[in-house]
């Protein structure tokens, strides 16, 4: 988090020094606009992001899912989900979040909302069909942990920051060609500070080029840490880490992509919905840019909690 703010400040600082400082621009219109757009998008997603996400996945509120249930078995499964969510919110000491069912046959689940009072948990139909009651409990506990640890808010803020950094870097890069012309005149005036200024300029240019990549990698690092934390908190709620471990194994086996979940929601899901089979793709780069830790690592961590690995 601090790294993020520092990064943002450094980019803004460079912008000021090399453009405003040398008279290329009289008003920091670029950074102000970038910050403005960043905050507007952050605020929008803060207040109505959950509705947008739920709408985009075609999620159905549990009441509506119940009334449109095709068979008694459907009703049973949905009631069970509703009950499990209520049980886990009691265990977590949180208000009960709204419950949604997504008509998708791939097992997955996610949580959204800005705080525990405005949280929603959505589960795919496929998950209800694949897992047992205990395993469902583990999955719901994991999602509720995201709610309790305020991960949803954190990821919203981070997403906004990544966006702002990308914007800043984009505009700075574009302004560079016009900026360099006017700065060549002013460089004659202060030759002494030229060496230090040049080093700073080089570092800044490198930072701009790499900014979006680094920001993304940082965001994903945060996301992966929060996944491990949610697994652990979930196990604390159910006192049954093995149920979540076996649910993860089942979800991992069905590695098909969850089509109804879009890319932007990936970090909120229990398993990477884009179907990137993390267990198969090892190495530095996939690890750096994945929203979720490798499934095998998560399962091992959970089994260690039960002294079984």
């Amino acid at each position, binding site marked *: 988090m601090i790294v993020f703010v520092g990064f943002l400040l450094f980019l803004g600082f460079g912008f000021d020094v090399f453009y405003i400082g040398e008279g290329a621009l009289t008003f920091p219109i670029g950074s102000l606009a970038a910050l403005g757009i960043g905050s507007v998008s952050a605020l929008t997603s803060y207040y109505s992001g959950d509705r947008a996400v739920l709408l985009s996945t075609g999620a159905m509120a549990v009441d509506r899912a119940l009334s449109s249930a095709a068979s*008694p078995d459907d*009703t*049973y499964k949905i*009631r*069970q989900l509703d*009950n*499990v969510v*209520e*049980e*886990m919110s*009691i*265990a*977590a*000491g949180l208000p009960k979040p709204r419950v949604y069912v997504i008509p998708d046959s791939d097992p997955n689940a996610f949580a959204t909302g800005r705080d525990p009072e405005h949280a929603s948990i959505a589960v795919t139909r496929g998950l209800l069909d694949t897992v047992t*009651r205990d395993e469902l409990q583990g999955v719901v506990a994991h999602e509720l942990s995201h709610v309790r640890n305020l991960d949803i808010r954190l990821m919203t803020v981070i997403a906004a920051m990544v966006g702002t950094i990308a914007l800043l870097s984009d505009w700075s890069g574009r302004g560079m060609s016009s900026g360099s012309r006017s700065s060549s005149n002013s460089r004659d005036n202060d030759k002494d500070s030229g060496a230090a200024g040049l080093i700073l300029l080089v570092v800044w240019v490198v930072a701009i080029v790499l900014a979006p990549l680094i920001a993304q990698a940082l965001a994903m690092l945060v996301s992966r840490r929060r996944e491990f934390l949610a697994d652990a908190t979930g196990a604390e*709620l159910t*006192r049954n880490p093995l149920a979540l471990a076996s649910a993860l194994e089942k979800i991992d086996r069905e590695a098909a992509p969850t089509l109804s979940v879009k890319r932007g929601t990936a970090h909120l899901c229990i398993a990477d919905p884009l179907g990137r089979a993390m267990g198969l793709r090892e190495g530095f780069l996939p690890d750096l840019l994945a929203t979720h830790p490798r499934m095998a690592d998560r399962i091992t961590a959970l089994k260690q909690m039960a002294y079984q690995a």
Partner: protein
Amino acid sequence: MTWILLAVVALVVVWAIALYNRLVGLRNQVLNGWRQIDVQLKRRHDLIPNLVNTVRGAMEFERDTLTQVMEARARAVSATGPADAARKEGELSQALGRLFAVAENYPTLRANENVKMLQEELTSTENKVGFARQFYNDIATTFNTAQQTFPSNMFAAALGFKPSELFEITDATERQVPAVDLSMRK
């Protein structure tokens, strides 16, 4: 020298205020946790007559088991005091466990959607009672630890805080894992 002394005193006062507020917050959470258990027990009491009525028709021959459940429920409803309530709720849990074990012998019952649904509701209520107790114990432990660790332990009692009791199984029979065999191996 006086300044240093004053600064130390001010620091201690600020710390004491923070401690007091934290303990009050925890105490309220503990109380809330305790009430939550009652709420869940009440729900269980409300659900049981429903269940018994649903299975009554198909379980004509098991009148005893059904009466036991209803009697245990009546006793649990009229329990006085936490210790008494804990014991009677435990008995009710056992009576319910027996009912479900016996119900497994009736294929028509197992296939009945209403019974399945009610069984789910009851499982859920049992879980809710369990998780409410778990939450209470967790929060009470946090509250107690906050009071008993150094240096809070020098002030907690003076500020009027007492450690909360944890929820414990009072009945020795409840400590045993209930032997409910649903595998139907006979």
